[in-house]
């Protein structure tokens, strides 16, 4: 069965989580975000009621300019790591929760799951799709206009 989905305003995020817990959704599944680009970020929390076997998703949005959301760790302690991962990957902050880096090195710059984050490997690694049908690696020395791989901004990686 598919999940019940509730979209709530950012101010109601914590109370919605408290209500979900009170209804019996005691199992924390996941908390993560979606980069909606000009529409800001969407935060998704999925919880589960083990007795009714019912899945519930809470969703809320925050603007790109002010990516701050209430923490739900007071309701679901297990959300702590997920909030830390979401904070570092999307560049969000959670009120009332110290979101020190969980996975990334301390001095890492940028937020890898933002859509505008350029993956260095996409620039450094040769794209296997650059070859045309009928070509092998040896043909790449021949000068011609070649397609750029998806995710590599114009001007990057060109020598």
């Amino acid at each position, binding site marked *: 069965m598919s999940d019940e989905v509730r979209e709530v305003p950012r101010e109601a995020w914590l109370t919605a989580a408290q209500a979900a817990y009170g209804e019996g959704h005691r199992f924390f599944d996941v908390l993560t975000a979606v980069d909606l680009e000009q529409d800001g970020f969407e935060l998704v929390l999925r919880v589960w009621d083990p007795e009714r076997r019912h899945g519930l998703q809470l969703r809320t949005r925050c603007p790109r300019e002010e990516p701050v959301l209430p923490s739900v760790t007071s309701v679901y302690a297990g959300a702590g790591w997920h909030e830390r991962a979401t904070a570092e990957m999307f560049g969000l902050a959670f009120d009332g929760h110290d979101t020190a880096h969980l996975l990334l090195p301390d001095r890492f710059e940028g937020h890898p799951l933002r859509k505008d984050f350029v993956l260095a490997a996409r620039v450094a*690694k040769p794209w296997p799709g650059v070859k045309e*049908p*009928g*070509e092998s690696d040896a043909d790449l020395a021949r000068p011609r206009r070649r397609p750029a*791989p998806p995710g590599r901004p114009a001007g990057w990686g060109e020598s």
Partner: protein
Amino acid sequence: MSEVPERTRGVIALRAESCTSCMLCVRECPDWCIELDSHKETVPPETERGRPRVVAVLDRFAIDYGLCMWCGICVEVCPFDALFWAPTHDHAVPDARQLVHERDVLGLWLADVPGLAEGNVHDGPGVGQDSDPL
């Protein structure tokens, strides 16, 4: 091999004779895990008034299962039914470099593709039009 459902995404098998080296799978792969080399050959005209054709001939087709995330986009985008899911599993190797499988191994897995021998192959849900007989 233990019993798994036929639809299991175990490995991707290659039917090299169906591959036209069009590069679509290589370019669509989000993980860049497919390497394909080919060269051009001129085929003489088949009829008296025909013209010679230039075709791409496959030299190398390899999938790096150390990079693959089993998304199946390559299977879906292949316009020529050259790639198939097979439920074969248990491919652990002691060295990650051994996870790069070349066309000979990818071709062996064709024997495990459900329904392929009977010409009754489905790429997966929603692509029923690709289920034409061989």
